[in-house]
């Protein structure tokens, strides 16, 4: 029989906000082990986010489109500024870069299958391109990272776009560490390192040091690929206004801005929670930078970090993004944190809905692992089907909102369609507090 324990609050006990139970457990763990907490995922703290925005649906002053009947298009062209072959995606929801190494080969294949089924792109990651991924991805973006693990020109030529990665939202300014337990013989061979050792991914590129150099690096990448492929530049959200301006000055065709809710395979918890800015705060900075350059919608903006629903997609686009990218949500769609693995999560000291030890390689769902037995649990065909379903739902949800706002294309959503629920969100997103015309930091208007 289950023992009923009284709620501590009913006994007059009061939990500290400063030293809450998670904080106390963290101190106790640090004292016991002498090691800081490394985990996967993005920021878990409460942050101003898309949930703090609402759409103003049409009524008398705006004219809606008929749901389920009138067209609301979703396609997006990425990288048409310089490339001979820009990407033309059917939906503006892309799959963010996640490495083979961090993810299993079946997981990478599933991402490719799901993305291709709905006409969008997926992205490689640190460690290079796998045949499974290339084979199943209609549109594949090849990440060009500081480590250059697995980087080779043959794969570069096979890619549909190139993404020069300067950072990611979970850890702007940081590199990475793929711990030894995930370095299988195949991963090690792709990265030219001994199996089983902890692999450091550098935080800086080895052969360029600033925006002037990056411009020459991008020129080289274009020359090597005969100016066929769009070149993206990805930054973790921090000084976004300046970073976007410099990325564009360096020649980026597409800028990817990843907010601090964006996930990682493995980084210090203190880094994830305390470095970078929320996605909501980054988008208006990026858009401002592009507008001032006269290149908004000409250099496309992809936003990632905490995209979960079609509402998030629509809100990001209303704020000025051309497309979004999902990572964590895509893994959840594949089966990450599925309650059917509850027993195994418990055995790992975690629980469904909380599991973030991607660095350990013991993922019961077979996604963030290199263990062959665990990896075999993920059927890439079924995983791809689930991801495609999820991407369709995201798209239809975004279309539902766009039609309600009278928009015949998702890209036509605009900041004027939004209001904020909190002063913080209003200030960051630069939209009025609901029921007012007040945008903090800006002169009042009617």
């Amino acid at each position, binding site marked *: 029989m289950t023992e009923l324990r009284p709620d501590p609050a009913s006994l007059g006990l009061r939990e500290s906000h400063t030293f809450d139970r998670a904080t106390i457990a963290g101190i106790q763990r640090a004292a016991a082990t002498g090691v800081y907490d490394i985990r996967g995922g993005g920021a878990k703290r409460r942050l101003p986010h898309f949930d703090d925005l609402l759409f103003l649906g049409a009524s008398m002053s705006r004219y809606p489109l008929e749901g389920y009947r009138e067209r609301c298009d979703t396609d997006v062209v990425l990288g048409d500024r310089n490339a001979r072959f820009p990407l033309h995606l059917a939906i503006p929801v892309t799959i963010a870069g996640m490495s083979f190494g961090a993810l299993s080969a079946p997981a990478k294949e599933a991402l490719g299958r799901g993305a291709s089924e709905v006409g969008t792109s997926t992205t490689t990651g640190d460690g290079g391109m796998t045949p499974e991924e290339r084979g199943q991805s209609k549109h594949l973006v090849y990440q060009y990272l500081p480590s*250059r693990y697995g*980087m080779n*020109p043959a794969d570069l030529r096979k890619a549909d776009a190139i993404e020069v990665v300067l950072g990611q939202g979970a850890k702007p300014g940081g590199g990475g560490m793929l711990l030894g337990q995930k370095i299988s013989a195949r991963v090690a061979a792709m990265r030219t390192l001994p199996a089983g050792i902890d692999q450091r991914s550098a935080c800086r590129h080895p052969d360029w040091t600033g925006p002037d150099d990056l411009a020459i690096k991008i020129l*080289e990448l274009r020359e*090597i690929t005969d100016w066929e492929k769009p070149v993206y530049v990805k930054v973790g959200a921090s000084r976004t206004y300046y970073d976007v301006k410099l990325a564009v000055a360096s020649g980026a065709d597409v800028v990817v801005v990843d907010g601090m809710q964006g996930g990682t395979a493995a980084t210090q918890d203190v880094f994830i929670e305390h470095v970078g800015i929320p996605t909501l705060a980054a988008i208006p900075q990026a858009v401002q930078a592009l507008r001032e350059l006269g290149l908004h919608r000409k250099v496309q903006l992809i936003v990632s970090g905490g995209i979960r629903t079609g509402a998030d997609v629509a809100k990001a686009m209303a704020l000025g993004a051309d497309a979004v990218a999902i990572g964590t949500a895509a893994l959840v769609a594949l089966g990450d944190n599925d309650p059917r693995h509850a027993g195994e999560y418990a055995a790992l000291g975690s629980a469904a809905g909380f599991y973030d030890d991607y660095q350990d390689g013991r993922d019961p769902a077979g996604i963030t692992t290199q263990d062959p037995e665990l990896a075999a649990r993920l059927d890439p065909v079924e995983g791809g089907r689930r991801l495609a379903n999820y991407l369709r739902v995201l798209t239809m949800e975004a279309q539902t909102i766009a039609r309600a706002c009278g928009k015949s294309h998702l890209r036509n959503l605009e900041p004027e369609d939004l209001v904020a629920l909190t002063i913080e969100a209003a200030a960051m997103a630069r939209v009025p507090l609901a029921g007012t015309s007040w945008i903090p930091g800006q002169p009042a208007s009617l």
Partner: protein
Amino acid sequence: MAPLSAGVAPAAGTVTFDLAETTVRALNSELHSPSATCYQVLHPQGAHALAAGVHAPLTVDVRGHAGYYCAGMNDGAAITVHGNVGTGVAENMMSGVVRVRGDASQSAGATGHGGLLVIEGSASMRCGISMKGIDIVVGGDIGPMSAFMAQAGRLVVCGDAGDGLGDSIYEARVYVRGVVGGLGADCVEKELGPEHVAELAELLTAAGLEPTGAYAPARFRRYGSARRLYHFATHNSTAY
């Protein structure tokens, strides 16, 4: 090594690209879909990305100074620069031979996976950074932070090496004939065994140096990883 020169006359059938009259784009486009096997480039005037992304067994002579990323990602070609080169010469080379008759700027041979890079003069800082299998032979000196996080391959330095040599080095091997300004984290001097003497002689010979007398392998010292930082540990926190 031999003094800087404009090189010998081109072989018969050599196709010439004079960059005073045409563009780098035209040059690279031809080299990516070659109609010949021998090329020479005149008046490079420090242009960037010269002969970048070549993936055929071509011979390319650049007669003058080159800018950044000359011969970048070379895969199979024999590319000679009869002059100096800017940052990142032969970066991420997969195979082939790149020879620089003069000096090289930063990050020479960075992240290279294979092939041989010969720099007859000296190389600036970060030479061989993150190298992944490339062989590099430098006739003169190399700057600081060279072979940083070098994973695989061999770096041979006939002159001196700057500070921080081989910081966080993995399995690459470094040979230096002159003075090392200082070793980086986890890089140590190692015994020069017979197998190392043999591979050093082979590398020097491939670079065009007679491995005797002043270039005798015995005059070099070998450096590599102590492998103490291969696994993250808090007791190493002051070493990083």
